[in-house]
């Protein structure tokens, strides 16, 4: 029973999903929309509660056991509590019952998001430049035939897109474009074919109950 109910539900949901692809009529699409949007949203709401519970439990545990860098967990808990209170009672954009300004200083959720979360995310994103440099160094170490090919192709493409490339040979930019348009696209399409077929096969396996690893595995 523990397995039969989820498998039956998956089969029905999967079948409904396939049927929605075949039947464009609104009288059916309404149900599909309901499953995709409303039902999934309700499930998400329950899952968010569980997820936030998990987040708090992990950090409370970290503080209690004084694990490495446990002080930062306090920072998270304070930020979490402050955001929750401001968001719940102050509204998203200062439209709640709680005042979200001190003088001309606003601290509503929208302002906090735009002035704290986004700059922090941008800082992390900016680190990509350095990670790319180290990844490029790693990629260009000639260790195998594939790495040599990668190095050669990358070198040609980099030179070819610069004005220097044209001064070396007027055919070089065209050759670079050919590398990008033909071997590169051919490889990508090959992967896309595999992905598309894999998606269909995986979906079919799950709908038919052949793939059960998501239930913790087993026959």
């Amino acid at each position: 029973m523990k397995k039969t109910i989820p498998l039956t539900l998956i089969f029905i949901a999967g079948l409904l999903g396939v049927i929605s692809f075949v039947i464009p009529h609104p009288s059916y699409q309404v149900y599909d929309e309901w499953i995709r949007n409303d039902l999934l949203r309700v499930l998400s709401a329950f899952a968010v509660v569980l997820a936030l519970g998990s987040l708090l439990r992990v950090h409370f545990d970290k503080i209690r056991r004084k694990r490495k860098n446990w002080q930062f967990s306090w920072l998270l808990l304070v930020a979490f509590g402050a955001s929750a209170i401001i968001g719940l009672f102050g509204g998203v954009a200062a439209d709640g019952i709680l005042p979200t300004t001190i003088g001309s200083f606003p601290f509503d959720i929208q302002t906090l998001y735009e002035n704290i979360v986004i700059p922090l995310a941008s800082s992390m994103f900016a680190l990509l430049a350095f990670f790319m440099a180290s990844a490029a160094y790693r990629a260009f170490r000639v260790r195998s035939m594939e790495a040599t090919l990668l190095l050669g192709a990358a070198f040609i493409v980099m030179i070819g897109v610069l004005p220097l490339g044209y001064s070396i040979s007027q055919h070089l930019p065209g050759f670079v474009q050919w590398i990008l348009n033909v071997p590169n696209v051919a490889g990508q399409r090959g992967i896309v074919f595999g992905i598309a077929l894999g998606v269909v096969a995986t979906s079919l396996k799950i709908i038919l109950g052949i793939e059960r690893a998501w239930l913790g595995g087993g026959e």
Partner: protein
Amino acid sequence: MILILLCALVGLAPPTDVRAYDTPSDGGGEVVVEWRLSTDDETIDGYDIYRSENGADFVKVGFIGKNRSSYGDRTEDGVTYQYKVAVVSDTLRSFSQPSAEVASSASWINVAKLNIYVAMILFGGLILYFIYHARKGKKLFIRKIAGLQAIDDAVGRATEMGKPILYTLGLGYIEDIATIASLNILGEVAKKTAQYDTKLIVPNADPIVYTVAREIVKESYTKVGRPDAYDPDSVFFLAREQMAYAAGIDGIMTRERPATNFLVGYFAAESLVLAETGAATGAIQIAGTDALAQLPFFVTACDYTLIGEELYAASAYISKRPLLLGAIKGEDWAKVIIATALILASVIGLLSRFPILNLFQ
């Protein structure tokens, strides 16, 4: 009247053969209007589309630029409409004859996707055929996938070093097939960590994925007879924000120093941040994603990368269950059919280029 006279004087030819029909294979609410271009098409501004419900009072419902000969109009199902198309040149208009009456309606079957249905049936049939053979006990050969063969070594290494294994599911939602494939692999990896008594860390970015992942890990530990070894805090929710999630995992990598990192699922720009940090900590890294743009980063920074379909095949490959292997075999044969069709089409395309061999033109 003055405008008509002006049109006649400047000789602005109206569009002809205006035809309106219900958009086929749609959910209703749209009529397609088509016309033959005005002979003055090169010199005009475009076309105004007019609609009437009674055949007399035409109201403008849209405009489309020159050299265009069709327009999709949003309509109410069951209401009968007629259309006129007018050539527009500055303030001048030259109207076509009205179209025949038309009413939009919703279709029950999307005939436009017929080719997809055929492919689905063909491909589904192949998979079911090989599953049937696998069920009957036929031995199926599956090529070796280095990244998946390394899983045992990776778990063993972590056990020997007494260090944890980090399993990252990426940013995907539960409806993403890459996330589902990753959850399938997580189930198999969790069984191994349970058997070897190795610590498993599974941070999540999505609340629903977190709940499913937690159940999978718990179930896997129970499956191999080690429910006592399951740590409820090993699977936890980290952050929904992309870079907050990346920063959190980077923190875990540098603090806990896992011996093995699994980066399997859907990833975006954070892929390189995670993979490079993992490489810097000296962990064995097994990555897998169907996000094409992230594959080069994983190939560069990780020891093994499951590329596209290998990610979906992983669960079958690890569990060695015949039914799952049958599905992979079916997948492979579908690829053979597609590759054959592509080669044939390319050969036909090439042959048609030679005038002497224009059999296929």
